[in-house]
């Protein structure tokens, strides 16, 4: 490690920003879980479907029947623990595990936002977010500090900045910038939006939104970092996220991002927020301002921790580039698409008709997907190759259990991408049973036959 980095690690900052972040994060997560539950989504997404799409390597993660409610309950309690800073280390570990388990149960519901929450809560395990203004700090004054290592706050800024910046990089492609797609498809259908509805059919608006969105994502981390542009940056954060909230069904995410962006602000703001909370809840904030500095003892474990978090970020920075290792168009094959902050980049839809063939007698029939999948699952399955493969294997097993033998499973699949006319997506002559899921390139995806230039 270089000297500069070493001295950086020893720098301190007031603990208030991280405490505020912890409180808001916990509350937002609690709100998200309550909303999810109240919408009946636990039932409709995890309990009703008889089949679930799993992540490669995590096939064992399945919904737990009615115990799934318990899982969400545990997750909610953990979120409360995080917000209060009560047995924080336990709370955040339980939150990370339960939340991640929930996300892994069915990849139909995959959202970059959920992945963001997962890795953010993982990072939070290693940060002293309970050192200040927490029940833990109150109960154990010897563990209470109002100064903590600066890198702990910076690591959250880095993660947030990374999400924006990578989302911006992902927009640097010809569909987004030259064709203003998919916004050109999506925005006109939002004509009933109050005030701006009429504008959304105008072509210049599609370009303005596309370019504006890309530039916003690329520059916002820097605007937030520098004190002179911070207020402008935050103003843009609020406008951007509220606009996306009004236009698209993206749930809690805009609010999470708006509130998270507060971490970039000066500690004075955080003290004000905490002062406000103290006044309302009649907490003595002064007792936390003890002047103690959290200086972790230099040890092998500490070095290990620093090394581990560095590694975490290196992986995060590299992971979105893994698509380069695959041939073919990323948007078409989606090999290396997930976990890379590619948000709202494609209008993609598909239609998949599976054919079950008795390879000895050549007798065949089509599958009615509605017998096995929910509409949501069918929608997601019909344009994502890994879904198609997993479903094909599931169908084989299902029909074998019914007594059919020597089965082959073929699919007629058509996919449209960003308004291009639908094209065959999967080689209809390939028996999908002969192929296994892996990180290797899926040779049975038909070529895209068009080009999207850019990153």
């Amino acid at each position: 490690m270089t000297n500069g980095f070493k001295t950086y690690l020893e720098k301190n900052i007031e603990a208030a920003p991280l405490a505020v972040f912890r409180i808001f994060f916990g509350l937002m997560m609690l709100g998200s879980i309550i909303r999810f539950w109240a919408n009946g989504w636990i039932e409709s997404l995890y309990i009703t479907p008889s089949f679930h799409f799993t992540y490669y390597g995590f096939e064992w993660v399945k919904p737990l029947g009615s115990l799934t409610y318990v899982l969400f309950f545990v997750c909610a309690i953990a979120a409360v623990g995080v917000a209060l800073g009560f047995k924080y280390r336990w709370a955040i570990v339980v939150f990370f595990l339960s939340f991640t388990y929930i996300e892994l149960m069915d990849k139909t519901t995959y959202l970059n936002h959920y992945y963001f929450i997962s890795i953010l809560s993982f990072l939070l395990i290693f940060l002293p977010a309970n050192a200040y203004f927490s029940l833990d700090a109150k109960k154990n004054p010897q563990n209470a500090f109002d100064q903590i290592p600066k890198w702990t706050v910076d690591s959250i800024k880095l993660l947030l900045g990374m999400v924006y910046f990578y989302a911006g990089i992902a927009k640097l492609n010809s569909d987004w910038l030259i064709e203003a797609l998919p916004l050109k498809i999506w925005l006109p259908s939002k004509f009933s939006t109050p005030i701006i509805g009429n504008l959304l059919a105008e072509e210049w608006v599609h370009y303005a939104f596309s370019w504006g969105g890309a530039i916003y994502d690329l520059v916002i981390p820097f605007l937030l970092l520098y004190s002179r542009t911070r207020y402008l940056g935050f103003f843009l954060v609020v406008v951007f996220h509220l606009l996306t909230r009004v236009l698209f069904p993206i749930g809690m995410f805009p609010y999470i991002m708006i509130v998270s962006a507060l971490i970039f602000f000066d500690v004075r703001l955080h003290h004000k927020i905490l002062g406000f909370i103290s006044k309302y809840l009649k907490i003595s904030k002064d007792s936390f301002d003890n002047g103690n500095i959290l200086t972790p003892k230099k040890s092998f474990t500490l070095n290990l921790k620093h090394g581990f978090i560095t590694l975490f970020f290196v992986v995060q920075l590299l992971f979105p580039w893994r698509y380069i290792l695959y041939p073919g168009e990323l948007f078409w094959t989606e090999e290396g698409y997930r976990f890379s902050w590619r948000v709202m980049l494609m209008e993609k839809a598909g239609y998949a008709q599976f054919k079950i063939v008795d390879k000895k007698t050549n007798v065949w029939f089509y599958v009615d997907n509605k017998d096995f999948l929910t509409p949501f699952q069918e929608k997601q399955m019909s344009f994502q190759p890994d879904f198609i493969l997993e479903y094909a294997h599931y169908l084989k097993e299902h029909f074998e259990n019914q007594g059919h033998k020597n089965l082959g499973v073929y699919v007629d699949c058509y996919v449209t991408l960003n308004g291009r006319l639908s094209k065959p997506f999967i080689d209809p002559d390939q028996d999908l049973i002969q192929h296994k899921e892996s990180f290797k390139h899926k040779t049975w995806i038909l070529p895209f036959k068009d080009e999207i230039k850019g990153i």
Partner: protein
Amino acid sequence: MKKTGYLLSFVVLAITIWACSSDGSSTDAGSSDDEVPVTFDRGAMLTNWADNIIIPSYQAFQVQLLDLQSAYETFISDQSVSNLEAVRVAWESAYKEWQHVSMFEIGPAESIGYRLNMNTFPADTDLIDAFIAIGTFDLSLPSNRDAKGFPALDYILNGIEVDDTTLIALLTNNANSVNQQDYVAALLADMVSLTDDVVGQWEGTYRDTFVENDGSSATASVDRFVNDYIFYYERFLRAGKIGIPIGVFSGTTEVNTLEVLYKPELSKSMFLEGLNAVQDFFNGKHYSSATTGESLESYLQALNTVKDGADLAELINDQMDAAREIVSALDDFKTEIEAANPPVPMFLAYDEVQKIVPLFKVDMVSAMSINIDFVDADGD
């Protein structure tokens, strides 16, 4: 301090908007009706659908159904072969007219399960025989849907006896005649009352409800109706009239699942009527007129001028023409199915019919930003 004030007001604004905005799925109360979209007026399309297609088609069907009912009454009062023949003719034209309204399963039709009440096939002949023998039955029960409607009439008019004189004898001069006659009268009365209900609601308040819900949420009329329309095409026209009988989903032919099983030369005509209705609707063609209005076709055209993509509307029309051509060239469906296993010509025809599904379900829906089926979850 001042800056913090601004900051807090942003947060408050954010939370207010959050609180006020619905979660994307319920009725779009926030949208105002007087906004005129620049490219394409969904409201004008809904008006055209309701006033020039849906309501006139329903009314025409209602007339045909009443004609059938009165033809039957005439036959009962004068049981001649020619009057029986008149009943059959009326039944056939009402059945064909039905193919033009079956796809409108939204609103009043949806809430009473109109389609399944009118045309669930194959008919359960044992159940029908039993009902006639006992003389008591409740046609309003969902479990009795396969003992009524057009398929039940098909069975009684065309399936019980081979020649007309024996059928007339059965209906009029038999221990069970009264029950026979009552049953047919009850079938007709049931169909008429269901139809009166649906047509009455469209003529009443539902038309405005339908037209005024011109937003673009998952519950807006266009989104919902397009879903219903595609569902009809896929499930009832494609699968119900061809796919299932030729064994596309089971691997073996099931000739007994044909529509109009007892007058099988009509199965093909019914399919073609349905296909015509679907295509006319797509093109916004006014009922029994060559005039067209705003439609899915013109909507696609409007979007295409913006998108500069392939002419999807033309592709869809071409594919429907291709499907019609190949199906028309077939022998009647029963003959085709019984001629060979698998019935290859019909499979080839099915493929052409099938090709429209991805064009509808993938391309059209994607171009219009319509959610296929109601998927209630967050997006990225």
